[in-house]
């Protein structure tokens, strides 16, 4: 390995400090989730235990963590799927010139910059004024899409800006129909990027508060539920939930790393002699 310049170490330290800063709350949460049974949400610690992890799977005094979690999960998946599909379609549409595309583009920008609470208020008003029932899977879903779609579309712009059109032409040349081209060529090639869009969509939805606030209807999503739970004493159970979420995320990343490593291994095993000069 080559020697690194000093700036590397300075920047790496900065990055480490930034990570520490990002993880400040996470670490606090992690520590406090091991409070003893008498402990609360703040320091000092009153003993240490796994009590609150156990409690997490029991019924809480107030609120329904797993019910709202499953709603958030379902909603997150709905938003994720829709974001991927609609963004891919939208992104593809924008590769062509069509009248009105600039209107849609500016709407997307507006959607990106409009304060969340406005969407929440507006969607809530539309539904209530037109007598439609608000529900997390209808109004809540739509309100969240106004947040995830701009991101999805912007990422798709980036993806398609880098996408070599000749792949599609080659497919058409090979007799693939428009749909076959998408199905067998475009989608597989951009698939890794779509994972990014999907992750983005899910994360933004899973943690969305303001846009769901006035649009969720009878049943709360997880952020709303936790907020609702704070109207009574909340316990380190919510910290245990945070710790589990974080552990789970680390797991996902570890799996991702493992897959990458395995794929690299497999590639070397396949024995590439690409670029070995004279044919």
């Amino acid at each position, binding site marked *: 390995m080559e020697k690194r310049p000093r700036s590397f170490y300075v920047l790496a330290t900065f990055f480490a400090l930034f990570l520490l800063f990002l993880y400040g709350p996470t670490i606090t949460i992690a520590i406090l989730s091991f409070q003893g049974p008498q402990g609360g949400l703040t320091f000092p610690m009153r003993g240490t235990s796994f009590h609150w992890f156990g409690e997490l799977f029991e019924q809480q005094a107030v609120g329904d963590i797993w019910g709202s979690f499953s709603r958030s999960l379902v909603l997150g998946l709905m938003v994720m799927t829709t974001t991927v599909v609609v963004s891919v379609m939208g992104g593809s549409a924008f590769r062509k010139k069509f009248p009105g595309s600039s209107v849609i583009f500016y709407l997307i920008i507006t959607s990106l910059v409009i304060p969340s609470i406005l969407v929440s208020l507006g969607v809530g008003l539309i539904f209530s004024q037109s007598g439609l029932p*608000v529900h997390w899977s209808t109004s809540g879903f739509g309100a969240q899409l106004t947040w995830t779609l701009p991101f999805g579309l912007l990422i798709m712009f980036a993806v398609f800006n880098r996408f070599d059109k000749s792949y599609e032409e080659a497919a058409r040349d090979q007799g693939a129909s428009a749909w076959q081209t998408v199905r067998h060529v475009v989608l597989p090639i951009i698939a890794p990027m779509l994972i990014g869009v999907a992750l983005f969509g899910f994360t933004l939805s899973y943690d969305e508060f303001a846009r769901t606030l006035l649009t969720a209807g009878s049943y709360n999503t997880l952020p*709303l539920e936790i907020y*609702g739970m704070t109207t009574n004493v*909340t316990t380190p159970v919510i910290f245990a939930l945070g710790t589990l979420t974080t552990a789970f995320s680390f797991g996902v990343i570890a799996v991702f790393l493992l897959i990458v490593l395995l794929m690299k291994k497999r590639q070397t095993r396949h024995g590439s002699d690409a670029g070995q000069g004279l044919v």
Partner: protein
Amino acid sequence: AQNIKDVTLRQFGTGVSNLNEVAQKVKEDLGFNLEMTALDSDAVTQRAATQPDSFDIADIEYWICKKVWPTGNLQPMDTSKIKNYDKIVGIFKSGKLTPESDIAQGTAPHTVGFVDGPDSKSFATEETGWMTLIPTIYNADTLGIRPDLIGRPIESWTELLNPEFKGKASILDISSIGIMDAAMVCEAMGEVQYGDKGNMTREEIDKTMAIFTEAKKNGQFRAFWKTFDESVNLMASGEVIIQSMWSPAITAVKSRGIPCVYQPLKEGYRSWGGGIGLSKSLSGLELEAAYEYINWYLDGWVGGFLMRQGYYSAVPETSKNFMSENEWGYWFEGKEATGDITSPFGDVLAKAGDTRDGGAFLERMGAVACWNAVMDENQYMVRKWNEFIAA
């Protein structure tokens, strides 16, 4: 034919009384499903006022009623169908705890408790047989303090603005409630004389907010809180040592082994009351189930459950059946505990020999100076409150 056991009722309210244990017990005792959604107090008002289809049962406070009732989203209840109607304490019917007590200032529950008929949108001045909310839970609020960190007796609401506690005081940021606390303080300081704290004039509002704004600018407050939990954390972490607080929040702090007192003050309490209302759209079997639920609610189990957390039940008599003598004595009669007092969730809240802060029911509820209120100048007050927050 439809079976009442298939009915599901959706109830929302703040976490204070939207307890899962209640729903569980309903399922056991009555057989139908109760789905509880806990919301913060802002969301509760919004939900009740703007999303009538999103709930069957609204668990709200009386002062909110003033905003929600005129929307027509709730239907009044026929008191003849309420088994224990007669046993409901007087506060919710005539406004008088005992026949001789004065009616406190503010939006007293009985003033918004009745309407003339099933379709009426304006409140009646006396009992009519049509109730807006069935009272379920209420209490007398005061300041909470950390005796260990203050180290001297606290007797008056004025202490909230005492510079001694600079940077360690807090009040709550729910304007309708906060303004009442503020008024208690200003009145106690002798700075403002109110005609009716529950229905201030613009001038009174201005004066009150001026005093508090001044204090805020001087760094009196560490923070304002909006949810129950925040008040608990502020107090438990020692960020704040004196603040307006709710009884069970004190209990929660204490249950962590941190000394905390719900300090009775000489000027009296600021009180609040909650009840459950029925959605306009409720009918048929579901309406029947709702009545069954209300009757069950007043039947004592919930009352006991709530009383053991430090609230009061609207029908104390029935609750007594679900409390031990020790508990009844401690919580209701203000007697010394004869053994450990535990919360319904198993935390030990008091030991033998302890007495409840503020004493017996009659002593506490008898010393209510005002109720949480929605005043005529509410919009003006709200704007001033916003200015206070932004100052």
